[in-house]
Each structure stands twice: as C-alpha cells, then as structure tokens.
C-alpha cells in the first residue's frame, strides 16, 4: 500500500472521531457502571460519579445544573458511599490510603502509581547525583595526582642513568595502569629516538602491552579501537593479522583505527589493506592514514598500484597521495584517469596534476573541459525539460547534479594557471566571455589570461570591447589587483 499524506491525515481524523465517539460512549456508560471503574475527570468531585453509579442514575435524567453545578449531595457525602468505604475511614492512615487506592477509579490508580514512582526516582536521582559528584571529584583528584606521579617517575626513568633501580609504584590496579599507558602514549608521541625507544622498552617490561592486547581482543568496539590505537602507537606487532580483519568492519570507528594501526605496524606494504577494501574510504580515514605516513615517515614508493582499484575511494586516495607527495612518475597514469567515468576520480586527477606543473597535460585538460561542458549542457537540458521552462539559464539548475561538472571545469582552469601559453588564450577568452559560466571561473580565466605575458594584456584589451558589463568589471579588477 502506498502511504500518502492524505491517507495519513484521513487516518488521524478517523482516530480523532473514534476518540470523540469513545468519549461520548464512555461518558454515557459512566452513569451505569460500578464506581471503581468510573471515568474520573478534573471537573467532577471525586465521589460524585461514585454516588451516581451507586444510585444508577441515568445521565439523561440529570439536569444540566447537576452536571455543572453539583448540589450538596454530590459532594463528599459519606452516607452515599458504599458501606465498606465508610467503615475503612475509621481505620489507620495506611489502611485508609490502601482502601482509597483499592477503590479508586483506574485513572486515579495509575496516577497514584506514577506519583509514587516519581517521588522515589526524584529521591534516588538526588542521591545518585550527589554521590556521583563526590566520587567523580575524588576520582579526578586521584587521576591528577597519579598523572603527576607517573610523569615524575617516567621522567626519572628517562633521565636517570640508573635505569634498573627505578620501580614504578601504583600501577597494580587496572585504572592506574590505564592512566600510566595514556601518559606513556602521550610522552611517546612527543619524543623521538632513544628516549622514545626507552619508553617503548619500559612499556614491554612492565607488561603493559598485555593490557593493550587485551583491549585489542575485547568484544567491545570502543575498547577494541582504543587497543588498536595503543598497539599502533607503541609498536606492538603481535596482533597484526588479527587487526587486518577489521579494516572491513562495519563499524567505521574500528575500521579507521585498524587501518591506521596497519599502516604503522606493517613492515611490508603498509597500504596493502587498500587492495581489498570493501567500504568507501572516508575523508577522515584518508586524513588519518596520510597523517600516519607523514608522522612516522613511512615511505611509499608508488601509489600507482591503487589507481586501478575497483573501489573509487581508494583511487581518489591514491591520487591525493600522488598530489601531496608529488609523485611525478605517476603523471602518465593520472592523465588516463582524467577520463575516468567517476567524476570524483576525474576531479582528484586534475588536482593531482596541478602541483606537477606538467605542460604535456594541457591537451588532455582542454579535452576534459570540453567533455565536462557537454555533460553540464546535458544536465541543463534535462533540467529544462523537467522544469518545462526553456528560458532557464545554466545558473538556474536547482539540483545538485551540476556541482561536480562545474567544480571540475574550475579545477581544470586552476590547474592550467601556470601551464598556459598564448596558444590557449582563445580558449580562455571563450570561457571568460560565456555569461552562463560562473563568476568564479570567468574571473580565474581572465586572471590566467593576464598571466600570459605580454600577449595576455592584449587579449584582455580585446575582451574589454565586449558589451558584457560583468566581463568589463572583472577585467578592470584583474588588472588593478595584479598591478598591485
């Protein structure tokens, strides 16, 4: 069944009507049913309905004044109450309360239960918050003291020649060991060379790596991830095979930590896990992997093997690495990817070529610009058909489809900035003149024209003759700001 908005509203109206009808039926029935099941509301005295029920007065017989202005006999009139209630009033408070509860209408019963629950939970919350505060303050103070203590001990260990005599106190308990590991990790990440390896030795000597491995093998995702981080930081290679199973875990947090750990711990082919990556590599994962490569000075000879990967995010990652590490040898392969079917890969390929400043790429970039222009035109044509509006301009595209082709076109001009010669001036003029092109790309094209010395200035002067006011304003600005 297709759920439409009208059906939902119809359903709600029906529910409302049924509820209304139900209320009507209930209100009529109230007059006849035993008092403990009687509906109770805020506008009638607690015992009024009970009285009605006992006397079984039909609702239709009650004068309107009896409904809205109850007479004395509707108030708490004990003679109207059932005999057992009457008797119980003389009993103890507890028995009386119990009796009221037992004989109360359902709604009152529910409210009484909720009331008791709320009173108890309020009290419990009050106590829990205060106790938690007490414990937390104590724990914080203890952690602070321990941290300071451990820092001093580790500093002693690092800078005292009499290494063997140092005994680390207070790392017998689980929490303390974790604080110790955290301190050690922090220091290790800020130290190099001998000091760092000394810390690592200590980590093993104190069997702290066993704690980290326990976390690695834990079933809880957050402990596992933390374990991955610790073994990666302190170079524990015992669990590499196990960790490699998690590069395709469905939990992205475990995934990224596993990937980073493998990059750090693998002696051969640190990026080998990319070969069989099933999930899309997120930007966050790419940033972390790149950071690990840089921070630990891990050298990757070539990223080309991943340019053929089936996972498009892996290709994008490889292209980004080629860009950042300026792998000039990869240019021929990257050039091929300019025409890849996936737009993200095309975009990454252009960006990868930019820092290479390779003039041999210009023909391909020009061709790609043409291709992207066709793609963009196609999107606009579809958009016009969909909107049934022939007058729509290219800039009026409402969907997100046009963003990537536009971005790619912009990046092409950006990549060509330092590569163009007078041969490309007519192409750039064409880009700058087209009023349907974005302001940004026109400006970039004109800046690029101006950078071709001295012919560029002549081209700009020619373009100044056009009637397009925007074009003229940009040219004037380009000349002014460039002169500055």
């Amino acid at each position, binding site marked *: 069944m297709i759920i439409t*908005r009208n059906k*939902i*509203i119809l359903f709600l109206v029906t529910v409302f009507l049924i*509820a*209304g009808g139900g*209320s*009507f039926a209930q*209100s*009529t029935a109230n007059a006849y049913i035993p008092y403990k099941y009687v*509906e*109770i*509301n*805020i*506008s*009638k*005295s*607690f015992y009024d309905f009970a009285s009605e029920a006992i006397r079984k007065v039909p*609702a239709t017989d*009650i004068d*309107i004044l009896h*409904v*809205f*202005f109850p007479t004395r006999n509707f108030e708490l009139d004990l003679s109207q109450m059932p005999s057992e209630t009457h008797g119980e009033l003389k009993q103890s408070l507890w028995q009386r309360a119990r009796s009221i509860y037992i004989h109360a209408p359902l709604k009152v019963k529910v*409210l009484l239960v*909720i*009331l008791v629950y*709320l009173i108890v*939970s*309020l009290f419990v*919350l*009050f106590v829990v*918050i*205060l106790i*938690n*505060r*007490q414990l937390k*303050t104590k724990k914080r103070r203890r952690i602070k003291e321990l941290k300071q203590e451990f820092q001093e001990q580790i500093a002693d260990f690092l800078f005292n020649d009499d290494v063997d005599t140092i005994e680390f106190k207070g790392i017998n308990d689980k929490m303390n060991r974790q604080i110790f590991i955290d301190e050690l990790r922090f220091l290790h990440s800020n130290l190099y060379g001998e000091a760092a390896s000394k810390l690592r030795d200590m980590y093993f000597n104190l069997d702290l790596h066993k704690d980290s491995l326990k976390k690695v093998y834990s079933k809880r995702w*957050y402990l596992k991830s933390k374990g991955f981080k610790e073994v990666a930081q302190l170079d524990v290679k015992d669990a590499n095979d196990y960790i490699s199973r998690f590069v395709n875990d469905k939990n*992205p*947090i475990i995934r990224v930590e596993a990937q980073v750990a493998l990059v750090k711990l693998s002696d051969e082919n640190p990026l080998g896990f990319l070969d069989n990556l099933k*999930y899309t*590599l*997120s*930007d*966050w994962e790419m*940033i*972390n992997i*790149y*950071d690990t490569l840089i921070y630990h000075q891990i050298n990757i000879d070539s990223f080309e093997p991943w340019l053929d990967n089936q996972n498009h995010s892996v290709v994008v990652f490889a292209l980004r690495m080629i860009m950042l590490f300026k792998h000039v040898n990869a240019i021929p392969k990257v050039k091929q990817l300019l025409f890849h079917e996936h737009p993200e890969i095309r975009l990454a390929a252009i960006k990868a070529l930019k820092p290479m400043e390779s003039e041999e790429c210009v023909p391909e970039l020009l061709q790609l610009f043409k291709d992207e222009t066709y793609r963009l035109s196609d999107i606009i044509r579809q958009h016009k058909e969909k909107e049934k509006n022939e007058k729509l*301009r290219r800039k009026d595209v*409402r969907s*997100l489809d046009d*963003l990537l082709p536009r971005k790619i076109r912009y990046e092409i001009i950006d990549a060509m900035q330092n590569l163009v010669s007078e041969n490309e001036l007519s192409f750039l003029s064409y880009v700058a003149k087209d009023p349907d092109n974005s302001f*940004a790309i026109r400006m970039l094209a004109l800046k690029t024209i101006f950078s071709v010395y001295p012919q560029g200035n002549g081209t700009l002067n020619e373009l100044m003759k056009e009637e397009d006011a*925007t074009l003229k*304003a*940009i040219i004037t*600005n380009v000349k*002014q*700001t460039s002169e500055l």
Partner: protein
Amino acid sequence: MIEFFRTLQYIIENGIIIFTIFIFGSYVALAIFSALSMLQYIRKNSYIDYKVLLSSPLAPSISVVAPAYNEGKTIIDNIRSLLSLHYNDFEVIIVNDGSKDDSMKKIIKAYDLEPIDVLYEQKVATKTVKAVYKSKNKAFNKLVVIDKENGGKADALNAGVNFSQKEYISVVDVDSVLVEDALLIMAKPFLEETERKIIASGGVIRIANSCKIEEGRITEVKLPKKFIPRVQVLEYTRSFLMGRMAWSKLNGLLLVSGAFGMFNREIVLKVGGYNTNLVGEDMELIVRMRRYMSEQKEKYRVIYIPDPLCWTEVPATLKVLGRQRDRWTRGNMESLFMHFKLFFNPKYKTLGLLGHPYWFFFEWLAPIMEFIGIIYFIIIAVLGIPNWPFFFLLLSVIYLFAVTLSHYAILFEELSFHRYNRKREVIKMLFTAMLEPIFYHPFILIFSIRGNFKYFIGEKTWGTMDRVGFSDDEQDDKEKENNNPEIVKGSSQVA
C-alpha cells in the same frame, strides 16, 4: 443537551490528558535515545586526536561568519577570540551590519585594517556592501571585515556567505565564546560520512553568565548567580543534551542554533541563503535545506555535536527573556507554517513524518494546549465544580515529572561533560529545578502565547511571509532573483 456538554467536557479533559501523556512520553523516549547516542558519542570521541586535522592539507576549508551590530564594547576581544581558533585553512569574516556605534573605527584601529579592491559575486541579494577590509598586519591575515548597510542578521550572514569561497561556513554570534578546538570538532563529522551528505551541524550552546571570560576565552566556568540565567542552564541542558542529541540520531533535527553552527556552503547557496524577512532565519534555513535535499532525492543528514563548544550570555531579566522567547515562538511558527507541506508527508521521510509534526504538536501547540487547559480550569473553578483531590493529584504528578526530567538532565550533564565543578553548584541546580515550574515556567508560557498572538495579528509579518512563500512559483521567483547576481566591489573610497 446534557450529553452534548458531557461529551464536550470529556473531549477537552481527556484530550488534554492524552496530549500530556504523548508529550511526556516523547520526553522520556527522547531522553532514552539521547542517553544512548551520548554514550556512543563519548566513547567514540574519548581517544580521538583532533590534531590530525589541524595540520592536514586534506582538511576542508572553513569561513567563520560573524555578523556584528553595535558590538563596539566587546568586538575587539571577540575577534581576537575567533582568530585564535585552532584550525589551519580558515578565515574569519566579520560583517559589520551598519552599526551605529564606533565598532568599525575600533576594528580598523585595533587590527590595522585597510580597504581592499575585491570583486566577488553576490549570489544572494543583500544590502549594499560599502567596503571590504583586510589587515596590513600579516598576523591577522585570516581576518576579513565586510562593512555594509544595515539589513538585519540574516542579511549580514548572506553578505558573509557571498564573500566566502571556502567549503564550509561556520556561523557564529560575534558575542559568543568558542572553545579553541570548536572548528576541529565541528568539522570532523562532515569528513566521516560517506553515504550521506552532511548539510549542517550544530553544537551545544552553554551559558556564559557569571563565567570568567578573559580576552575572549572562558577561563572559569561558574553557574549563573541570578535565578533567570540559572534556570536557563537547566532549560538548555534539557533541550541540547536530551532533545537535540536524540533528534540528531533520528535525523530529524530542525534547528541549528544561530549562535554556532556549520553549513555546507554549496547547499546554502542552492537554497538561496538566509531568508531576510523572518525573525527565525536560523531554523527556517535548516528546514529549507532539508526540504531541498529531500526533494532532490539526495541522502543527507543534519548532525549535532554535544561537546560544549560555544558559550553565550543569555537574558538575565524577564523583559529581555520575554523578547527572546516571543521571537523564538514566531520563528518556529514561521518555519512550521511556511513549510507546512512537510506535515505528515511521507515523501519527506523522517522530516515529514516525525520532525515537522513533533515541532508542530509539541513545540508550537504545547503551550497553546497548556494555556487552554489553564483557562478551562479557571472556568470550572469559577463555576465551583473542580474535583480538587483529582486536580491536586494531577498537578503533583505533572510537577514531579517536570522536576524529575530536569534532574535527569543534570545527571546527563554530570555523567558527560561535567562542567560545573563545585558541589554547591550542583545542589543549587537541583533546587532550581524544583522552583522552575512554579516561578519560571508560567512566564515562558505567557511569552509563548504573546508570540503566537503577535504572529497572528502581526500584519507586517504576514505580508512579508506572503511575499516569500514557498509555493513552487514563488520559490522560483525568489531563486531567479537570487540567481541574478550583482557584483560586489570593495571600494577603496570608503575608508
């Protein structure tokens, strides 16, 4: 006749009770959801090293846009605070929205600014930009100041959006204080998602009244001394930690606070930027962006970060509080009615089936129902027919529920971010929660009703809304207007 009155009586009374049960039920459900997502968030981010973003060339670029109007007293410190944020590729765009005080003079002097020749596209129409300034001092090269004619906050934000060339826009109230890592923490979720586009993210707003602020930084967190701001600490804790966290998980978040949020710039531009004719431009933008993404059949999310990243001063007097709440109510109503097409519309999924109806019933309708309930009770009290035992029973339950909910919120805060360190502060909060329903909530109800009243009688507001309505034709007209860009030139003549 009698039956008619009895039925009416039952419908009103039972209707209000059923409504209350639903509201309370939703609060409990949201609290449970929030607790689960909070736990996951804290575990997930407990060992994250945000520094990898700080130095990475792969990190996205961000423009921090801060509109300023007559902020002369604090603007210098505020800008310094924004400039000292920890992030690599970012700029701070201060938009002076035609301030009448000496803000501009002060900024020019303090940051050694000069007007620059700059040409950029005005993708969203705004009031005239008089000049764009940058600093001669390289230490402040991340600072851009746009001086424009007064056009309101939304207009100023649009001017910032127009100037920005970065991937993301972070909108900040210039008088808010951000923690140094705010941009790093806020940017991370945008990078993690692969299946869906993150279009916006919002952060928790914490209350800075009575806190010690030095050079635009919070140096000591203190619970507000005055009752009104202190109650708002509870309100914000309930709303942010227990409400929005859950809505983020359900992908039904309709509001990113104007005090601090981050947006995908391309999507903001696609929907035409902020609507300058509304009082609740922040909520409306999110609703419009969400609606746009749904209509384009794009997978998207609006996310929420529970870390206390942004601190701001809240109203300390009833008068100012009243103005704020009245504005909020009208802002909510504008967004809800302007986008009424979403209401129970399965085409918009969570947004249509959950987010919009929830806001409609429980944010907009709840105070109205409460008000009707009070009026109804006054009538029956005057008529002399209230069932006092039942009334007191019901009142006790409602009061205790409200207090318990606040205490849960305090527990949330205690177990998560634990920002108030003194024991007496916690005790004060617990007691404030007990006083809130009696001494604070009635005013909030009055302000909300006043907002409703103003919205419905405010001819000007209705007129403006008609003009920027969201029927397809009107939307197209608006887009055409926005897609007809003017060029903005920072003139060196205006110094």
